[in-house]
């Protein structure tokens, strides 16, 4: 039995001091419900994905669920760091796949700007293994990826300029996305002139600290027929993986094993053996520019070590081999942790339906991919979608 996405919604991302977590989640849920054309009675299960801690609501699923009108229908609260949204989609998907429910909603939401930057860094720095990393050495989330960048640059000759090109591309796309945190282009020179946050990553190599929410309504094939939905986007591939909590226990720092394993699992399920030829669009986890470069390689878009050239030659831009992060990516659209994975689904669904406006990609295969990483490869999720 197939499972399809029948409705998606996404709030405006950014510094949203105007709304509570519940209110920003509501923006996304309302749009998704309208998009799907279903009522609250149709939804049998609510899954709330939020990483938490930076928001004043420390047990946020129930308040979010209540505000969105789903009291009594769950909620299941899931957390997978920056991949929380994908984990929420998976719980909704698997509940339908198991035959437990026919319609489920995945709500991804995050308020990250209710604490100051130093506190936010201290929360993110606890993303690996607190006692052995943050407690002793003050690791930060930018620092985790910066360590990977140092290894990638040393081994493959990847340059700061190539990393900055990811920022330039994603800001250019975000400038045309009214829901993006940064609707503003940056030049290569500006990106390369910004100060280091964690060497070798500069400010413009980093995604912002954002608030936002996204929602996706999933349904069984049977229910989709019953509802008469004429534009479902089917989930044809699902892959997940993870890696060690401690970075010191990783075999290698030139890529993310969780991406490799999750993508091959999803590719096998979806019958993808040549992603560049079979996919029209990809959203990849670009929390930092080096992350997008490693993702090109680990997802099999290019060979290991060639990610820097892949961006330099425009292969991931509109008109290239595969447009990547067409809505601006985490880098410029924003990265409210719980929302991100669901917002990726929003983007791919809009693209595959042909509803992406000025950011629309050419559709040949009518297939797209989401790649969402939690921590630094601590969680890895890949979904393949098709019309």
């Amino acid at each position: 039995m197939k499972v399809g996405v029948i409705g998606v919604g996404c709030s405006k991302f950014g510094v949203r001091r105007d709304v509570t977590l519940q209110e920003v989640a509501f923006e996304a849920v309302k749009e998704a419900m309208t998009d799907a054309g279903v009522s609250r009675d149709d939804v049998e299960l609510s899954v709330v994905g939020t990483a938490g801690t930076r928001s004043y609501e420390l047990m946020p699923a129930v308040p979010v669920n209540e505000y969105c009108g789903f009291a009594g229908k769950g909620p299941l609260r899931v957390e997978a760091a920056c991949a929380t949204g994908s984990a929420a989609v998976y719980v909704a998907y698997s509940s339908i796949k198991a035959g437990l429910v026919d319609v489920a909603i995945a709500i991804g939401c995050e308020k990250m700007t209710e604490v100051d930057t130093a506190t936010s860094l201290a929360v993110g720095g606890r993303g690996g293994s607190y006692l052995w990393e943050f407690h002793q050495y003050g690791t930060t989330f930018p620092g985790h990826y910066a360590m990977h960048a140092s290894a990638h640059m040393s081994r493959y000759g990847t340059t700061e300029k190539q990393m900055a090109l990811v920022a330039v591309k994603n800001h250019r796309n975000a400038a045309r996305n009214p829901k993006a945190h940064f609707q503003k282009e940056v030049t290569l020179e500006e990106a390369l002139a910004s100060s280091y946050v964690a060497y070798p990553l500069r400010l413009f190599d980093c995604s912002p600290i954002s608030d936002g929410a996204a929602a996706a309504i999933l349904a069984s094939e049977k229910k989709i027929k019953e509802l008469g939905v004429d534009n479902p986007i089917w989930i044809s591939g699902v892959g997940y993986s993870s890696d060690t909590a401690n970075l010191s226990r990783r075999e290698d720092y030139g890529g993310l094993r969780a991406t490799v394993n999750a993508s091959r699992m999803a590719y096998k399920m979806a019958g993808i053996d040549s992603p560049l030829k079979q996919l029209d669009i990809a959203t990849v986890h670009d929390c930092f520019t080096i992350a997008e470069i490693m993702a090109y390689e680990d997802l099999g878009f290019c060979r290991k070590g060639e990610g820097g050239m892949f961006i330099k030659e425009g292969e991931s831009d509109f008109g290239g081999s595969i447009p990547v992060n067409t809505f601006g990516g985490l880098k410029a659209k924003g990265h409210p942790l719980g929302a991100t994975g669901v917002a990726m689904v929003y983007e791919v669904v809009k693209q595959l339906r042909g509803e992406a406006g000025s950011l629309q990609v050419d559709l040949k295969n009518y297939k797209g991919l989401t790649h969402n990483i939690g921590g630094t490869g601590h969680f890895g999720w890949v979904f393949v979608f098709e019309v």
Partner: protein
Amino acid sequence: MESRPFVLKHMLPISRVERYWKGLEEGKIYGTRCQSCGASFYPPQADCSFCYSGDMDWVEIDGEGVVECFTRIQRPPQGFEFASGGYVIVVAAFGSFKVMGWFKGEGLPEVGMKVKAETGKDELGVWKVYLTPL
């Protein structure tokens, strides 16, 4: 408006790996190795994640390490205000163990640089590993 203050400070249960923390005070860095399957662990742990044995040997890590990756933290997080000028974090391989530490040397390290490990405590009294160029 602001929320009520909420301070989180946890007690850290370290009794099963106390030898590691005592070792740092003695200038020694310990990992553990499973007596049953030979798996090595750094950071040390009291249980084997692979064969589930609880019989572990403490193994001292010393000699020459090789830098595998590094970063210089320019924006320290809450709790590291004492290091507002930044600090360099390194992961270096010492045989079958990889060790994280603060770099103690001029400028930035390089991947492939040879280092030795020392121990010491920071301004807040937290013991840690320092990696110094050879």
